[in-house]
């Protein structure tokens, strides 16, 4: 019998620690499939964030490093500059990338570092127990916004790819969602392009993935998918925000 669907080589056959309905498992799977399809497993180094995906090395079947909270793009920069033959991706959550690591992500993007950034946005700090993230929706209740996030008080939700789009040296920026098979397929296409750009030396790429966090949104897993459709996507429009990779250098 021919196998039509199996575990990617880049994904270890282990039990996951993620909560039911969490998006990280999907993202791990997509990355593993892409790494296999591009044939880059033996030269890929992933960098796991501080946060829910901190145990990334338990799941990925290739080399993985940790990084201090938010410093992931700097670690990736050091790796890629020292060994340009490696395929380096950073895997970051919204707190890691859009709060404590804002300087690192903007400057890695602005330098056009030839790395790939996988940005998992679930609008909340998961690992530390559900506090507000820079991407938390207005009105959303979290541990540190018990009356709902108020923009007047703590600012409005941060749109990361749009922010990075103004940096001349960013090559590919996209936003996708993990709430339906269709959107997940689109996410895979965007992620694959982001990795492919690095393989081809086209520069900095980032894909934001709107991901469910049923635990800290306080909803059932299926309702979390609806929440993404009804509340998150209207605030964070999907699509390619910037694609400079197709332009020829004069």
């Amino acid at each position: 019998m021919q196998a039509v669907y199996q575990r990617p080589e880049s994904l270890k056959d282990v039990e996951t620690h993620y909560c039911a309905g969490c998006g990280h498992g999907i993202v791990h799977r997509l990355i593993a499939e892409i790494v296999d399809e591009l044939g880059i497993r033996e030269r890929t180094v992933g960098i796991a964030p501080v946060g829910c995906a901190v145990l990334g090395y338990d799941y990925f079947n290739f080399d993985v490093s940790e990084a201090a909270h938010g410093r992931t793009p700097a670690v990736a920069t050091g790796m890629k500059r020292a060994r340009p033959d490696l395929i380096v991706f950073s895997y970051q959550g919204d707190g890691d990338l859009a709060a404590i690591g804002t300087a690192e992500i903007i400057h890695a993007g602005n330098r056009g570092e030839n790395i790939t950034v996988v940005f998992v946005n679930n609008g909340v700090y998961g690992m530390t127990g559900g506090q507000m993230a820079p991407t938390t929706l207005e009105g959303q209740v979290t541990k540190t916004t018990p009356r709902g996030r108020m923009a007047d008080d703590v600012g409005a939700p941060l749109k990361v790819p749009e922010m990075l789009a103004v940096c001349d040296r960013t090559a590919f920026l996209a936003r996708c969602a993990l709430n339906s098979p269709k959107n997940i397929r689109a996410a895979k296409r965007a992620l694959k392009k982001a990795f492919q750009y690095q393989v081809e030396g086209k520069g900095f790429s980032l894909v934001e993935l709107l991901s469910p966090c049923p635990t800290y949104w306080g909803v059932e897993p299926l309702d979390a998918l609806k929440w993404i459709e009804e509340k998150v996507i209207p605030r964070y429009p999907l699509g390619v925000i910037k694609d400079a990779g197709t332009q020829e250098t004069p």
Partner: protein
Amino acid sequence: MAKNDGNGARSERILMCGNEAMAEAAIAAGCRCYFGYPITPQNEVTAYMAKRMPEVGGVFLQSESELAAVNMVFGASAVGARAMTSSSSPGISLKQEGISYLAGCELPAVIANVMRGGPGLGGIGPSQSDYFQATRGGGHGDYRHVVLAASAVQELVDLTIEAFDIADRYRNPVLVLSDGVLGQMMEPVVIPEHAETHEPEKPWALTGCKGREPQWIKSLYLNEHDLERHNQKLQAKYAQMECDEVRYDTRQIEDADVVLVAFGMVARICRSVVRVLRERGVRAGLFRPIAVWPFPYEALRATRERAQAYLVVEMNAGQMVEDVRLAIEGRRPVEFYGRTGGVVMEVEEVVAEVEKLLVREGVS
């Protein structure tokens, strides 16, 4: 042009400032990745590396912050490169997070601190006020690293080269201490063209899993017992450093009634102090830790058989005094003289302090 002495080493003496000499020494040691952020008084390092690294096929990158610089070093080290960053006191405070991670992840790196006065923004004059920060860990967690303190430009060159070897030997960050005077002053130095360094194979580096199982670099151990085991392993390594990496220098302590203890630039001043005191008939000597961690406790303790009193001289408010007192164990008086804020002490003021100490202690 450089003359070759036949052993692959450059024999020509050239005039260089401490900061540039340190940078060239790093290159001689095989460092091909330098990440830095400007701060006075170490800016010559970044400028020098910006010019030289591309010439030797290396990487120079001016980072967006000290935090980014040390984490770029983390990344370069994690993939097996000899990597370095440098800064000055306020910048080193920012790098402490990364240094803790380097230690926790057992990654080699060289970090140079061209010290200036603090606390806070302080000034740009020379200082030694980061002694506690350098020798006690600085960042969070139970970790240690070798700290080498140079007192001359040539020594800064030699210690910088050695620092890379020590870092690789233990898979641990190593700190090189310089200061605003040493960094700026020019002295003739010999920089070995191909320094004889001992860069080991790095099978632990993340180079892609071709031909082997995937591996990781991490300091996270959520299971308490696993983390304790990791700490025990680290502590055993630090204990080994305490045995094998003690470095010090002495001058005329064999018959000394009074021993001055000083490191770095201040030790140079104290050499003159000893000379002046000897001319006046006072048997003075100098004990200079070259590694301030591990501190040469035993060697210093041995001097108390003869010496009657100790004067610790530092460009700070008396931080090394604690280590000297630990060595002397209360058997002899240990006094302190220091200047802060970037003020460099004069020879005569230290001489006067020694003479006062001798009178107080009744040593003629």
